[in-house]
């Protein structure tokens, strides 16, 4: 494989590239889905290809191919150079890259049991068992269970002599159950967002899918009969199963420096966290709020050895004691704020250009109260569990989330169940209203595999750790009249 990459880099530099890098990527996937007693689908997937990124006359060009041959390496490198020259005609500011040490080495996700050697029928049996346990509950309309194993083997070569090899393995399994009425459907799911972890099959064995199934189904049925959450302003305690997406949408995305500079404006949007706010120490949230981009969190889907520019994995504080302190950045964007790359450039496979992507964006736990203590400390509020829907504006200010399950808190105890619970707010006001962050006892890592960005579209695997937190005076029950 290295010969192919070297040939592409040689061709690119001979044709005038001042910098070039090549990624050779091989992906393997296994999926199994069961629903209502049936195996809905089992899929093995494999793709292989390479992408060549070149800098010519201060502009980028990128081309890729799934045909692995020397002549194709030449053709793709030449195409990338031709594309870069076309871009240079309409480029006003030449690309400047921050320095980095020459990258070299190998990284592998720690795996105890290789998911690609576990017979698929074992997994199907496990899924069918959990599905049957859900379907056995009266009132359930559909029950489903899914499994996904993902492995990416990646070589990175650059014209400065950098060469890294990485093997990233992610696995996930989860349940979903629905109870349908005439005009409404209620859903419960477990674990959050497909139950992913950077790990081997040992993670799947650790998930108590069958054990959780009956309760999950009973909750879906109970929700269908529960009242809709009335509109109002309430105190919220967010479980990590909802808090992870609040972090993703209202902290992860707005701290992407390419968004801040407008290069995602045509699709994903821009950001309210403009760079003047970094200098001013903008009050993003209350002083309890510490948010960190950590590409080394064990088990996180945003954990790796080097990003797709050959920058080593890092831990970057984004918000410290409520103040904006950093961004997710690349070699091209970081120099514009006087910093070095934070190592956040990743591509969705061989045929996509690296973009700034979240790593593991974590809300750091605080010593003091557990999540149970926070609930006990809340006189009147709502406890919100498991994300169901999400939406946020293009600058990441106005958000609205829906959750699967809401319980009222009265006098520190959980009570009334509500369906169709939503809440809405403005990002810095919301994080500014945070008056309690739980300690590490309830800390959970959630993997997200559908983080969309870029044109053509790219889905990315990212992670979010949090332990739960409390927010005051939040608008809830939007649209429930």
């Amino acid at each position, binding site marked *: 494989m290295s010969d192919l990459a070297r040939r592409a880099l040689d061709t690119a530099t001979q044709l005038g590239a001042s910098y070039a890098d090549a990624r050779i990527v091989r992906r393997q996937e296994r999926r199994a889905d069961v629903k209502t007693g049936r195996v809905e689908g089992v899929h093995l997937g494999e793709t292989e290809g390479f992408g060549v990124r070149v800098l010519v006359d201060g502009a980028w060009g990128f081309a890729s191919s799934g045909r692995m041959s020397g002549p194709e390496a030449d053709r793709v490198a030449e195409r990338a150079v031709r594309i870069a020259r*076309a*871009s240079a005609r*309409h480029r006003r500011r030449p690309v400047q890259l921050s320095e980095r040490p020459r990258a070299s080495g190998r990284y592998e996700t720690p795996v105890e049991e290789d998911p690609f050697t576990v017979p698929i029928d074992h997994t*199907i049996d496990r899924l069918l068992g959990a599905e049957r346990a859900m379907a056995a509950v009266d009132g359930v309309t559909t029950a489903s269970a899914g499994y996904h194993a993902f492995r990416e083997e990646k070589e990175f070569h650059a014209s400065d002599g950098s060469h890294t090899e990485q093997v990233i393995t992610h696995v996930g399994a989860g349940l979903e159950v629905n109870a*349908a009425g005439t005009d409404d459907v209620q859903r419960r799911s477990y674990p959050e967002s497909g139950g992913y972890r950077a790990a081997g099959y040992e993670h799947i064995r650790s998930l108590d899918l069958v054990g959780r199934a009956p309760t999950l189904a009973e909750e879906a049925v109970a929700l269908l009969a529960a009242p809709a959450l009335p509109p109002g302003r309430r105190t919220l305690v967010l479980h990590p199963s909802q808090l992870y997406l609040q972090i993703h949408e209202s902290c992860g995305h707005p701290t992407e420096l390419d968004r801040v500079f407008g290069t995602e*404006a045509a699709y994903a949007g821009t950001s309210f966290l403009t760079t003047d706010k970094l200098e001013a120490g903008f009050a993003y949230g209350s002083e309890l709020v510490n948010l960190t981009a950590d590409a080394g969190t064990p088990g996180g889907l945003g954990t790796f050895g080097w990003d797709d520019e050959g920058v080593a994995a890092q831990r970057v504080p984004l918000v410290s004691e409520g103040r904006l302190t950093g961004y997710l950045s690349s070699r091209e964007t970081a120099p514009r704020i006087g910093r070095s790359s934070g190592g956040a450039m990743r591509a969705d496979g061989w045929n996509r250009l690296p973009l700034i992507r979240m790593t593991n964006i974590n809300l750091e736990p605080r010593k003091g109260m557990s999540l149970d203590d926070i609930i006990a400390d809340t006189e009147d509020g709502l406890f919100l569990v498991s994300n169901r829907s999400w939406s946020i504006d293009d600058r990441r200010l*106005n958000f609205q989330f829906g959750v699967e399950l809401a319980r009222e808190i009265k006098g520190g105890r959980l009570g009334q169940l509500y369906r169709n619970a939503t809440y809405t707010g403005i990002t810095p006001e919301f994080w500014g209203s945070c008056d309690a962050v739980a300690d590490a006892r309830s800390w959970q890592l959630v993997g997200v595999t559908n983080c969309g960005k870029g044109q053509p579209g790219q889905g990315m695997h990212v992670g979010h750790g949090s332990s739960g937190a409390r927010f005051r005076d939040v608008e809830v029950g939007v*649209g429930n009249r």
Partner: protein
Amino acid sequence: MSEPGAAEGRDIARRAVSMALDAGATQAEAVVLESSSALTRFANNELHQNVAQTDTAVSLRFVAGQRIGVASANRHDDASLRRLARSAADIARLQPEQDWFRSLPGPTEVTPVEGAWASTTATADPGRRADAAAAVIAGAEGVGAQAFGLVETESETVSVVNSLGIDVSEARSRAHVLTVMMGPGGGSGYAEEVAVDIERLDPPAIGHEAAARTAAMADAIELPAGDYPVVLDSYAVMDLAMWLGVLGFNAQAVQEEQSFYAPGKIVASPLVSLSDDGGDPQGTPASFDYEGVAKRRVSLLEAGACAEVVHDSKTADRAGVGSTGHALPAPNPWGPFPLNLSMAAGETPRDELIGGLERGLLVTRFHYTNVVQPKSVVVTGMTKDGLFLVEHGRVTAPVRNLRFTQDYLAALAAVDGVSRERRAVDGDGYLGTIVVPALRVGSFSFTGTTEH
């Protein structure tokens, strides 16, 4: 340039099916996608990303009695196809028997659609895309704005072969230009166009349309959240059609009791008719689906009443009907999708829809919408790139963006005008190309404000 790949893709598919049968399959199906695409992005009035890719992907569905396995790869030499057949066979044989499975679909009469592919799109080079981007950027510069957007060209040959006699191949192309502009005074604007043939795109016109909106949006006023009559431009109507297509008129959603659909149920104004039409020349036509079944025009909403739903072979078997030709590539947990949605035009010029508003809002498009309650199609999202106050039939002021939380069926029931003009717009990246008019809606629920 002649249409690409058809012979090669079909040959790969035939070889894959043959190898599956050699490996013991009782039935087999291969789908081959040969694609070549390129995309030029611009931001802040300059090109910043410019990418291209070429690939051939093979997906093999292996049937062993009532056991099914699917394997896919992007290598297609004989050794790789043999390995693919073995992989698919292995996973099929490890499964329990699936009593729901009857058969892969048999051949249907596929009539090639006119104008699914254009050589001009397939051969567009980086210079052509850069020139198109420059034309859009010129529009922004004319009003002192910054342009952001893309020019995209795709050419793909889809070949489907199965052991029951399906053996079809079709070249399809798509060219797409879109821009978001941001101007002085905080204004932003949008315009977009999709066509099979890049020659049919008009980048200067797209630039001017977005620039005019951007200039008009400067110094927007703030309006309180609340219920307003609205005119939804085509870009916004796309979102209504998309969610109805995914949540409502998908046979799997109906079979799983997650859809509002019931035959004859009235859910919209009599002015609203929606279909899925792979032959609509204003969209991006296709004559068959990813099972190789001929696409039938399916009437989804007929004068406000639910008519039919789209099927693939699995949902069709469950319902005891024939597939309508709307399968996605296997395995597919989402069910059949209408990838060629088309809302019928009305008789009123778009400007007269606005002229008929006593006091309301003109909405250009929606951003980041998501479903709050699927069965009633309650959706939330933001307005973006053009929100205007209309008073006495005239646009009187730009308005800061609002969040909405709206039952889309209720909105369609409140439609009192449909424009004569229709546009082909991108179905949010995953629902093909959607052809839609503008709509005037008696009441639309805005539930929040933002700073811009």
